[in-house]
């Protein structure tokens, strides 16, 4: 079809039989992208780069790691001290997990604010939540591998979550452990699964991209591009913007690796695992803290576990909770306020998850947990009914070029939906 696009005859020959070059040209070069994307739209590609960094460093770390309870801790220390550049590879992998979550959390809040989950991007959003779940499972199992105190007790507490399931809970936990406590079989299978799951993530990411390219990116205005005048080709406009964002990201990443490599870790994980003694204050990695706070806020075992998983599950149905036809929070004055309250609520949950479960922290955790669910289950559905949105610009170009024709566009969008 488009084989004549390429001047190189070899490329033409291949493309005629395997249209890989046409595909790349279509999806990465001429791919029409809204011309008004801001820097929050960098975080998707940053997440992709993070995934690649994690897979590459993970594969080389696996070449020196021993998944056995007697050797795991030592093999990690050997990577740190004896393996050539091992310290660097491990610090990249370790901090890379944190940076991956930072990037993904910003990516998610971007989607929440600009309504990127709304029609026709519901499946795109759902695939994204699925990626988040897979990332959480992968990160959890990866944290177990160094077999320090936090590894061991984190694994114990998280696997014990499943014992809350009525009747079959204990059998499930025994099944997960391959024994009667977290032990060598557990470490072995966690290593196998930790190696497998990133490739599952790659698979879902591909689906995520297919769904994205079906309708193209959402944008800060939240209305669809009305024609070629509203879009620019992905290359070079957004490739260069993504590369600039990437260089900022890598600068911060390198600063963490070289100057604060253990800032986001926990010192107790440099103590070898001891199944006879729980550390006085165990906390999960920072990116799990909001969910951990929700788990502890509910004074019932099963209830706490359900609330924690519910906090993710509610994201799956978000496209059907927020029925407002206006995508972008810029044009929703009340939503905008509640968005920032929700953002503060998530930060508060993260803080509370790191505090001991006593006194005022318990009360605050309960309030913050209640607000988390209230936001999704009550406020968003209610707002979509009672809120009067601001008038939308008539087109992306007008909004960029400062056109004055703003009237009547809100109703136009409503008609479209």
């Amino acid at each position, binding site marked *: 079809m488009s084989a004549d696009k390429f001047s190189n005859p070899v490329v033409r020959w291949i493309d005629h039989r395997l249209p890989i070059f046409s595909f790349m040209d279509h999806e990465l070069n001429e791919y029409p992208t809204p011309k008004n994307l801001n820097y929050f739209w960098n975080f998707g590609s940053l997440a992709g780069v993070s995934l690649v960094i994690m897979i590459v460093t993970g594969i080389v770390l696996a070449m020196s790691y021993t998944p056995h309870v007697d050797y795991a801790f030592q093999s990690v220390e050997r990577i740190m001290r004896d393996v050539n550049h091992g310290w660097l590879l491990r610090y990249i992998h370790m901090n890379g997990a944190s940076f991956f979550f930072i990037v993904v959390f910003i990516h998610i809040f971007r989607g929440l604010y600009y309504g990127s989950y709304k029609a026709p991007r519901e499946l795109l959003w759902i695939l994204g939540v699925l990626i988040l779940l897979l990332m959480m499972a992968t990160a959890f199992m990866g944290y177990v591998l160094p077999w320090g105190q936090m590894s061991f*007790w984190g694994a114990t507490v998280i696997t014990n979550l499943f014992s809350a399931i009525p009747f079959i809970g204990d059998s499930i936990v025994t099944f997960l452990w391959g024994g009667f406590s977290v032990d060598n079989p557990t470490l072995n299978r966690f290593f196998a699964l930790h190696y497998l799951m990133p490739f599952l993530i790659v698979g879902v990411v591909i689906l995520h991209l297919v769904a994205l390219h079906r309708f193209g990116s959402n944008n800060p205005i939240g209305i669809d591009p009305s024609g070629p005048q509203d879009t620019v080709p992905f290359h070079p406009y957004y490739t260069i913007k993504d590369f600039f964002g990437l260089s900022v990201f890598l600068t911060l990443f390198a600063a963490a690796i070289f100057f604060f490599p253990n800032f986001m870790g926990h010192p107790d994980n440099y103590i070898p695992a001891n199944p*006879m003694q729980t550390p006085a204050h165990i906390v999960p990695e920072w990116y799990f803290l909001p969910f951990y706070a929700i788990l502890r806020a509910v004074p019932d075992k099963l209830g706490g576990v359900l609330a924690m998983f519910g906090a993710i599950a509610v994201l799956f149905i978000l496209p059907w909770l927020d029925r407002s036809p206006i995508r972008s929070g810029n044009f929703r004055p009340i939503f905008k306020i509640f968005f920032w309250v929700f953002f503060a609520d998530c930060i508060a949950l993260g803080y509370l998850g790191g505090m001991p479960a006593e006194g005022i922290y318990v009360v605050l955790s309960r309030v913050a947990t209640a607000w988390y669910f209230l936001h999704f289950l009550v406020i968003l559905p209610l707002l979509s009914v009672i809120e009067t949105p601001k008038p939308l610009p008539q087109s992306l170009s007008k909004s960029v070029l400062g056109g004055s024709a703003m009237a009547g566009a809100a109703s136009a969008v409503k008609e479209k939906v």
Partner: protein
Amino acid sequence: MIRSPPIKCGEGKMAKTNTSKQEDTQVDGRRRDFIVVASYAMAGIGAAAVAWPLIDQMNPAADTLALASIEVDISKIDIGQSITVKWRGKPVFIRHRTEDEINTAQSVELSQLKDPQLDVDRVSNPKYLVMIGVCTHLGCVPLGQKTGEIKGEYDGWFCPCHGSHYDSSGRIRKGPAPVNLEIPPYTFETESLIKIG
């Protein structure tokens, strides 16, 4: 299960056939449906049979299952002292309780308990409390074994992970844990030797 027309590929012919032939094909269609359903079912059973070893390999292996038992000499535990031994990869608490602790444990009303159980049902010799030292909430090891550790509001054990308080009989009194600390199977071999498992 009757489809109409019953067989798609025969559609062209069907138009020309008479009624009796149509009935024949309907019977054929039902037979064909049966064959289809039966083969799907067989394929499903086959797939499940292949999947089972792949899943079941994660359950405890034979050597893990071989229920190890241990013997513990308790003669050296003074009154008010506790020791922790390892059984099946888990800590087991053995406490030589004081008179005070025994009295408090025995005098608690069942109505005050979240998981009602009499103290006498939790010990074979009231002086020695033997239980698995794993919090029934999410599996941490409660504090209270060593002198100076926090023993919680009921002078027993306290789980630092999520704040469960256990009394001097190891029963849950406050916090998120749903049930009392578990009692392992054990017997007194002699007065000062117990066999756990």
